[in-house]
């Protein structure tokens, strides 16, 4: 008998071979069986006399309806922002699970009742509002949803143990709110539950319009009351299976990868057609677009740069919507030369805004001559400022315009389209003798110096304006930034007619007279246009792309990714 000689080399070879084979086997992609449909089942029935075959036709097993989207990619997406204290944007995805009292419509101008049946002021001074819920609402665990949940949520949000110093800034709008937030009272007297369906809110100041679209039902009292406010604030329970009231309910959160929600059988509009809705997280738009084209996801926000190429790919629909954001070149009136109206007029006459819209935005942006793009806030007597470089040169010469040094044109927009826009502005202004150098900084850097008017002369920015004058308060009203430089406490400094604009903004946001509010807003628009408080540019569109297999899909890129009625209960996958 011959002995088989085993050497170290042979052993190592065998081990390497086995290891390699195992690695290859392990790396084989998992076979994902997405659909199992049994179309036919053949049953044999044997009798004593004759053998016969019976074919039983069965109903097709329903395919699980799963939609994967990148709902938080793009401006104002807020991936994994499940802590209300740590978010200021990214509400669209949240409304899939936690419904508001009302949704915005797709234009962001009209409220569509969601959980609330009605809301109305019950006092002549506009300080008391009564909100009524739809009857029969339930949380996703079957427990009734009542106004006690909303009161619990308010108490939690304004509890210093939960919100710290932020409790007071939120609570002070309600009567008795500040005392509660400071721990001096046990309850907020201005928030009263009249019955399960009705709550009465009493505000310190008149509230001409109540934005119920900003009030979400996020905290079910029967679930969250098991934790102390401090425990909730620690953020350790946001991943728990907590009750929801939107069309979908919380299922799973694989951190840094995706959140999975499943159909909520108790949703008041009825159980959604989709079984699962998954929000996948991408760190960059390019990868999200590739995943869309590959079919791994069904929806993502897309930048203007990829719209033309994606439109050529069959099987996808590019959806455009108004961004609700006005783009303009903000001016800092702390720079003496900016105070000369002729210089500001030259700056706007020097820009061919139509050409930029036509070439860079492919005609999809709306030219602006004041902050507002809405027709009702644009009086007919606004000056249009058409492109006229010769007039711009003459105005600059008349004003003896000189620049000691090149100005930085600062922005926080880092996408390619905005870079191109900045370069176009640089070129147009250079043609008439205004020298600027584009500079892009990140958002924290921008926010650290721009709003207080420090170290800049011109900056290319955007401002949400879909709520009309309310959105203008922060930047244009005086005394809005106590830390701002100089006499006037706002971004711009002392621009012409600042006192008139501030007075008009106050009327436009607090008067109970609708006609007076509108007139004040129109006055603001006129001043912004005539005095050129800023160089008005455009309101651009923003885009999403969806796989055509998703039916009934709606997308609206509202500022802050605000929740709108997207009829997600009707979304459906049709192969």
């Amino acid at each position, binding site marked *: 008998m011959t002995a088989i000689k085993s050497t170290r080399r042979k052993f190592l070879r065998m081990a390497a071979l086995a290891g390699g084979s195992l690695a290859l086997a392990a790396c084989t992609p998992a076979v994902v069986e997405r659909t199992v449909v049994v179309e036919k089942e053949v049953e044999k029935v044997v009798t004593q006399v004759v053998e016969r075959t019976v074919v039983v036709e069965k109903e097709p097993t329903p395919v699980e309806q799963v939609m994967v989207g990148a709902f938080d990619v793009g401006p104002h997406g807020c991936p994994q922002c499940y802590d209300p204290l740590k978010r200021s944007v990214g509400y669209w995805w949240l409304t899939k699970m936690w419904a508001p009292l009302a949704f915005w419509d797709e234009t962001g101008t009209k409220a569509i009742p969601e959980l609330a049946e009605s809301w109305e002021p019950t006092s002549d001074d506009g300080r008391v509002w009564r909100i009524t819920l739809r009857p029969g609402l339930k949380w996703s665990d079957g427990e009734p949803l009542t106004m006690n949940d909303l009161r619990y949520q308010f108490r939690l949000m304004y509890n210093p143990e939960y919100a710290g110093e932020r409790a007071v800034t939120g609570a002070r709008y309600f009567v008795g709110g500040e005392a509660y937030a400071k721990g001096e009272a046990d309850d907020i007297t201005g928030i009263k539950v009249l019955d399960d369906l009705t709550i009465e809110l009493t505000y310190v100041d008149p509230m001409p319009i109540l934005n119920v679209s900003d009030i979400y039902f996020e905290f079910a009292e029967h679930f969250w009351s098991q934790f102390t406010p401090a425990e909730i604030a620690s953020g350790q329970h946001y991943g728990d299976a907590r009750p929801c009231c939107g069309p979908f309910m919380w299922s799973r959160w694989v951190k840094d990868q995706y959140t999975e929600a499943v159909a909520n059988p108790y949703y008041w509009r009825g159980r959604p057609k989709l079984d699962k809705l998954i929000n996948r997280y991408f760190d960059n738009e390019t*990868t999200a677009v590739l995943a869309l084209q590959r079919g791994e996801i069904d929806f993502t926000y897309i930048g203007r740069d990829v719209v033309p190429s994606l439109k050529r790919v069959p099987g996808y629909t590019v959806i455009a919507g108004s961004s609700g954001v006005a783009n303009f070149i903000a001016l800092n009136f702390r720079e003496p030369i900016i105070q000369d109206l002729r210089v500001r007029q030259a700056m706007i006459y020097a820009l061919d805004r139509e050409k930029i819209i036509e070439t860079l935005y492919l005609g999809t942006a709306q030219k602006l001559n004041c902050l507002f793009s809405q027709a009702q806030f644009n009086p007919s007597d606004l000056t249009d400022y058409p492109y006229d470089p010769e007039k711009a040169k003459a105005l600059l010469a008349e004003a003896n315009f000189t620049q000691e040094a090149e100005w930085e044109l600062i922005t926080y927009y880092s996408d390619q389209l905005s870079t191109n826009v900045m370069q176009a502005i640089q070129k147009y202004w250079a043609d008439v003798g205004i020298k600027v150098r584009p500079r892009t*900084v990140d*958002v924290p850097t921008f926010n650290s110096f721009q709003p207080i008017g420090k170290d800049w002369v011109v900056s290319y*920015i955007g401002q949400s304006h879909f709520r009309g004058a309310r959105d203008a308060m922060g930047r244009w009203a005086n005394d809005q930034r106590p830390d701002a430089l100089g006499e006037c406490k706002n971004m711009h400094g002392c621009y012409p007619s600042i006192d008139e604009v501030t007075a008009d903004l106050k009327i436009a946001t607090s008067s109970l007279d609708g006609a007076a509010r509108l007139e004040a807003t129109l006055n603001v628009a006129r001043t912004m246009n005539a005095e050129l408080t800023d160089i008005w540019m455009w309101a651009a569109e923003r885009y999403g792309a969806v796989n055509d297999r998703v039916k009934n899909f709606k997308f609206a890129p509202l500022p802050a990714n605000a929740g709108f009625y997207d009829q997600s209960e009707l979304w459906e996958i049709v192969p």
Partner: protein
Amino acid sequence: MGRYFLRRLLIYIPVGLLVTLLVFTLADLAPGDPADWLYSPELNMTYEEIQAIKESMGLNQSPVVRYVQWLRQTAQGNLGYRMKNGDPVGPLIATRLKRTLVLGGVATAFGIIVGLGLGIYTALHQYSWFDHLSGVLAFLGISMPAFFVGVLGLYIFGLKLQWFPIGGITTPGGDPDDLRDFLYHLILPAALLSSNHVAGYFRYMRMSMLEVLHADYLTTARAKGMRERIVILRHALRNALLPVVTVIGASIPGLFGGAVFIETIFSWPGMGMLFIDGVNARDYPLIMGVTLVMTSVILLANLLTDIAYSLVDPRIRLETRSN
């Protein structure tokens, strides 16, 4: 050796403290803070709201107080909580580090195996067509930036050929603990990340091998009648490996930092992405936590490299000054 080890460790404590102090100071001097990150410039947030956020985050305290607080907390074994979302920093780094080490480890291992193999082969077949081809490919591998390689790889192998998924570490909706699914997501980013390693190690190995192949002691070895295979493997390779091992050793700490571009493009939640996220959000506890871990790893790696030298090269002895 023991005393040397202990002495070096003691020196590292003030070095580590100095690094954290330096990073904290730089982060604090950088414009913007976590509250400035939190709100979009396009929204209308009041001054009071912003100030309340800053206060609730403790940003109104002096930098010295904040640094001492962080230090005290860290000394108690707690790296703090992210300002962005409240996640505990320690466990977060541990999770991200694992993913980064897997990605970087596989890429480096692949780089070593293929790079060294190619280097040896091309040195032995200098000026062959394969040598020239490898040289061109290595040049490409080193020259192409990681973000370009990443996007190109995703486009070709993910979108066009559909061999691999488009990023992520798990299939959404599937079992997040499925090892096969994880490996399926790992292959493409690891392979693309390794392209740079392969090119680098190949060039070092080839150069080092070529230098050794012309050494006198190899001629002597051949003259003694040794088989060519023994000459190459036992004499040439072992000597040629010494400088290459140094290069590989120096790259090990880099594994812990993560591959920022590849991780970002592939949505691979590792240390690179985490650190960038921390810097973007001015998330001081996270920046400090990552810095501390990275500093410790680099200092430890330096110490281990010194020790490894003394073990590999008998000419080097580790001695304390008193000895």
